[in-house]
């Protein structure tokens, strides 16, 4: 299994949609074969179409707000006393997280295909919030599927979706989190694929959804590459890119443009959600050696029992609380291009405390997982090493959890 150079990773799947011959694919009901094929044809055409790319870039620039900042965390760097710690503040993007890129592209595609309705899944609520924003912007009617447990713990985003005229459909089956929301969304699409476009909220699902999402979030690394060269004159000799990994959309987008660099120069570190320290449950299939299985249309490493039932996950961060992982990350793990590790709920909370103590930055619980590992590793490195953490979401949505776990003083007033 090998990564090819000079070919975008999203285009390295074989004819049946498998990366490395075994990750991804299209394990879907017959009814979805045609709509998926239609979407593939459309996307393959448009991703190389200059006018479509110009349209995308126009919305990314004027509406999403590209580029998002790339800043040095001076105080944190001094406190840690090792490598230079920087952050790509992707939460600057319109709506407060990276999910806006995928949502925008899906709405543009839906418009091109003449669809009037769009549906999507959401965990932390960001994918749903952004899809509702983009749907409103492009005049599409929108339904968002969200686990009942996530609705309860991510209220600010639920309110935002409703404000954008989206219908939020609670999902009560299974663990009532992201995994069930994705299933329900796919089921709805099975029954309505003639009129409705589906947006999968991360680099998961049938192969074309993995590709569209990866293509969209790659905006992050396109910007970062330019910003690094502006700042350092060239890509630093020792660069380490830390990102949290749930489904894997922000991390893939954060790394994509650096794929062809030697990993000794540009190392990718993916941080999964290890769950509460005292719990055996987690959302870290790559770190804890889960077996390959099929979830939501794709073969991937996934938490499951010996029979093949998908196992419940546990994490303080709704956005990482998913038993599977993008086929792209399975491929990056097995080719050893990226390194994966996990941070616990408690690790993420203390990282949030440290970052907010020293910097004017409020990473949500998802990137707080990445900060936790970045801070620990930065200590052991010298200042020639450039550590960059993707702060891919804003903590506003987590205010209730933070208030409960850390106390009021860690939550800024609106």
């Amino acid at each position, binding site marked *: 299994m090998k990564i090819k150079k000079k070919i975008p990773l999203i285009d390295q799947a074989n004819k049946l949609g498998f990366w490395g011959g075994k990750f991804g694919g299209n394990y*879907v009901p017959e009814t979805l074969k045609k709509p998926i094929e239609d979407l593939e044809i459309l996307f393959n055409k448009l991703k190389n179409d200059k006018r479509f790319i110009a349209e995308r870039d126009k919305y990314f620039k004027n509406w999403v707000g590209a580029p998002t900042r790339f800043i040095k965390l001076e105080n944190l760097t001094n406190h840690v006393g090792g490598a230079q710690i920087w952050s790509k503040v992707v939460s600057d993007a319109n709506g407060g997280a990276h999910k806006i890129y995928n949502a925008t592209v899906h709405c543009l595609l839906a418009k091109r295909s003449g669809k009037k309705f769009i549906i999507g899944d959401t965990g932390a609520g960001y994918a749903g919030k952004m899809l509702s924003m983009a749907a409103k912007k492009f005049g599409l009617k929108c339904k968002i599927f969200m686990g009942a447990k996530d609705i309860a713990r991510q209220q600010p985003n639920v309110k935002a979706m409703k404000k954008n005229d989206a219908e939020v459909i609670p999902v009560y089956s299974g663990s009532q989190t992201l995994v069930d929301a994705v*299933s329900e969304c796919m089921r709805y699409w099975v029954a309505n*694929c003639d009129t409705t476009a589906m947006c999968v909220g991360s680099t998961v699902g049938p192969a074309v959804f993995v590709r569209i999402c990866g293509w969209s979030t790659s905006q992050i690394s396109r910007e970062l590459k330019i910003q690094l060269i502006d700042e350092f004159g060239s890509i630093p000799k020792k660069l380490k890119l830390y990102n949290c990994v749930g489904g894997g959309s922000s991390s893939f987008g954060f790394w994509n443009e650096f794929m062809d660099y030697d990993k000794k120069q540009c190392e990718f570190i993916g941080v999964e959600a290890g769950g509460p320290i005292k719990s055996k449950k987690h959302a870290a299939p790559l770190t804890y050696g889960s077996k390959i299985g099929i979830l939501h249309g794709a073969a991937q490493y996934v938490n499951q029992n010996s029979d093949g039932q998908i196992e419940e996950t546990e994490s303080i961060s709704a956005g990482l609380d998913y038993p599977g992982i993008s086929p792209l990350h399975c491929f990056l793990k097995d080719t050893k291009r990226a390194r994966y590790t996990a941070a616990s709920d408690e690790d993420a909370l203390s990282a949030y405390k440290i970052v907010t103590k020293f910097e004017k930055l409020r990473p949500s619980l998802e990137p707080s997982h990445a900060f936790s590992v970045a801070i620990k590793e930065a200590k052991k490195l010298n200042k020639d090493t450039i550590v960059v953490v993707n702060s891919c979401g804003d903590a506003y949505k987590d205010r209730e959890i933070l208030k409960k776990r850390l106390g009021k003083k860690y939550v800024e007033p609106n």
Partner: protein
Amino acid sequence: MLNPISLAFKKAKQENRAALLTYTVAGDSSKKQSLDILKSISKHADILELGVPHNTPVADGSQIQTSAYRAIKNGIKMNDIFKIVKDFKKSNKNKPIILMGYFNMIFQYGENKFLNKCNSSGVNGLIVVDLPWPENKNFAKKCKKKSIYFIQLLSPTTTTKRLNKIIRDSHPMNYFISMLSTTGGKLKVSPNDILKNYTKIKKIDPKKEIVIGFGITEKTIGKLKSADGLVVGSAICKEISKSLEHRQNPVTNVSKLVKKLKSKIL
């Protein structure tokens, strides 16, 4: 020897009627009860589909989901399902059984081991909801070697070109999904339109048996009785849920329902 599935269609044809196929979930609501249900409905049904419950089903509506979650909660495992089939076959050697489920269960068991176990317990056919053509080509070949029918699914969204290719590669039985829906949806197309699609598919290779499923209930089954076979699933699962709710015996209630369904297509 001819696969019992083909024998069942032959018998129904001789009686000048559609074959009745039922779907129940293995282990719903317990291992013993699902076996008792199979035994009891086998008097009226021609072919028995037995669902392998999975906890992230992407094509099942709420009735079948409820049954599946109930069975999983009660501890059903893949080996228990094979045992149910084996026990059933002890007293019903020629009644065909089809296992229907999602591919991850087969993938984790191991394709070859799974098929061997199908053979030794008496499974006659397989429907794998999320293993479409051409992804299923290799697995379907393996099934054929074991004399197990791999049943292809066809949908209203399947293009004519694709229909031709799938049917060319298919085994003697195929399954036409009546409409765009998960299982158990309300029938949103007219039976006439469903039969029009059915006839179009049937013409491609008249020798292949085509059954129709999804959204078929007591009310609608009669209007579709010109098909080779008709599948009722969600309506049966719903009957089990209702019986449990009212503290009635699901075995007798389901049996009554299947008898009634049968009477509508005679």
